[in-house]
């Protein structure tokens, strides 16, 4: 019987025939933790092992992104706990507060290959499925277990196949497609499943778009979304992670007779800009339907939509509007990584954003928590390209619309929720 990608990945990592429903122990290629969750891992590891040595310091990495740089003494002390542990354990892969969002930094450093099994204390670790890796967000106990033995248990999931055709119209992008999917399939529409994305729309999409798509699998309670690198994405990845990438792609691609639990097809040609309305990601409407809604703040960034292509798309909207955002909203742009920020500087974007009245920040997760800048007061409404909008997520009693970078910038320009096609004429 043929196997899906996740079955092949788990088979490689476990040395076991991976049939759906099996529980298997996988060898871990990279076990990571962030400034959030990381300190908990370190303290728990030292407690349960009596400060033993980790299984392999070269396969552990730390990233500082949730609250970087530290904004409070408690956070600063937490970050120090990680730095001290890394030094003591001989862990050299420490990406401190100057790097940006963890998964993206790991990817840019060539630490992620198709078929890798990667752990992290971030529920959106699985965005690395955008280059064919099985990355999984886990709690601190799972990370600690992996640091002891280098292995972790998984249930081999069913796989859903989604084929996408057509090209996006003006003002519409992968984020809108993803929002459409969340609305269509629901908050548990991919429950515990792996998802393989195919079709011409995916094959010609950028790395940024693939990351957007795979990051939001979490919002449908999926395990991981997988896309096998091709074209320019493959070239980019080989340059970063080496030629082994090519062998992995051959070994990990799904068999022609693989068994899928679902086989869905969508065409994006007539898709419109979409919004997850308050207060749930699956409360989806077209931006047209929700247009005109009062807003107080706009944020473009996050692990889902803060790469150069995302910021460039927002820039085009700002340019078409004459480089001025509305005085009635606070507009914040947060690049995903330092590399992305440099690209923005080189392209001349940052100068223009600043002149337009935008707050352009250092690379960080920023508005995924109420414990960093941009917090919303009760009753305020935000527009954001982050990935969750449950009530009060970024400030008690606040509400958020989740949209694409283009819709976010169009809304920043007009001061109310706005369809970007009204500006990109």
């Amino acid at each position: 019987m043929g196997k899906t990608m996740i079955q092949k990945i788990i088979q490689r990592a476990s040395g076991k025939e991976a049939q759906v429903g099996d529980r298997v122990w996988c060898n871990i290629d990279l076990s990571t933790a962030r400034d959030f969750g990381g300190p908990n891992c370190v303290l728990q590891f030292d407690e349960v092992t009596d400060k033993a040595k980790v299984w392999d310091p070269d396969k552990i990495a730390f990233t500082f992104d949730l609250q970087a740089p530290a904004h409070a003494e408690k956070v600063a002390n937490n970050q120090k706990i990680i730095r001290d542990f890394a030094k003591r354990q001989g862990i050299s892969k420490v990406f401190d507060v100057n790097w940006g969002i963890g998964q993206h930094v790991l990817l840019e450093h060539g630490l992620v290959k198709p078929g890798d099994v990667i752990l992290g204390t971030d529920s959106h670790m699985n965005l690395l499925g955008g280059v064919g890796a099985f990355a999984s967000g886990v709690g601190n106990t799972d990370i600690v277990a992996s640091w002891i033995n280098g292995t972790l248990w998984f249930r081999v999931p069913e796989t859903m196949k989604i084929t996408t055709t057509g090209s996006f119209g003006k003002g519409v992008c992968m984020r809108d497609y993803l929002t459409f999917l969340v609305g269509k399939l629901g908050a548990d529409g991919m429950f515990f499943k792996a998802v393989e994305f195919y079709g011409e729309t995916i094959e010609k999409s950028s790395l940024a778009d693939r990351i957007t798509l795979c990051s939001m699998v979490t919002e449908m309670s999926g395990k991981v979304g997988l896309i096998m690198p091709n074209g320019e994405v493959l070239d980019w990845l080989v340059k970063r992670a080496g030629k082994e990438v090519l062998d992995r792609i051959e070994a990990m691609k799904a068999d022609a007779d693989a068994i899928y639990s679902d086989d869905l097809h969508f065409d994006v040609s007539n898709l419109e800009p979409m919004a997850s309305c308050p207060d749930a990601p699956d409360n989806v409407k077209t931006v047209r339907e929700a247009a005109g809604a009062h807003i107080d703040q706009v944020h473009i960034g996050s692990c889902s939509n803060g790469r150069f292509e995302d910021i460039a798309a927002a820039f085009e909207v700002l340019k078409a509007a004459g480089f001025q955002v509305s005085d009635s909203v606070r507009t914040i742009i947060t690049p995903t990584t330092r590399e992305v920020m440099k690209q923005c500087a080189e392209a001349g974007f940052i100068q223009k954003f600043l002149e337009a009245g935008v707050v352009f920040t250092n690379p960080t997760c920023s508005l995924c928590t109420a414990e960093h800048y941009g917090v919303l007061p009760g009753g305020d409404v935000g527009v954001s390209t982050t990935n969750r909008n449950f009530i009060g997520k970024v400030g008690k009693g606040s509400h958020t619309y989740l949209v694409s970078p283009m819709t976010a910038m169009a809304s920043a320009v007009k001061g109310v929720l706005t369809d970007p096609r009204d500006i990109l004429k």
Partner: protein
Amino acid sequence: MEQSVLRGKAWVFTDDVDTDLIYHNKYLAETDPKKMAQFSFEYYPGKEKFAKEAKPGDFVVAGRNFGCGSSREHAVYCLKELGIPVVLAESFARIYYRNAINNGYPVLFVNGLSEAIKEGKIQDGDELEVNIGTGEIKDVTNGNLFHGDAVTDLEKDIMASGGLIEYLKAQAAKK
């Protein structure tokens, strides 16, 4: 596995209860599980006083996809530390499920619970009797009966050890 019947009050929640509603990101910097209980459900509209008013032995009752969202294990620690003996839900989001198992914290999958909550067949304040071992659940207030399935396979073994780290230690001792 605990076979005796537990009795306590129901605290009822909807479908898709996100981890920010269980344990808000505002308190992520906390590293001591014992201090996490006080923040339970602080951001859940209408349940802000849960941490103060819930008594050890009370039950958390929810619909589908409980614990969706973040990877934070805080969302398991806080309920465990508060003395909530088991979470009853129609289904659990995958990371929450892992985190519960890895801590030896019981969860029961209760078929039909989402609809039952929507139809008012189990409500806030109802007295419940729960047998974690058999999965029998009785709403004493209105007489409604439910059945919960415990975890199976490897998860059952991990639960029996008391959690993942304890399981690994027991496995290592066997070698």
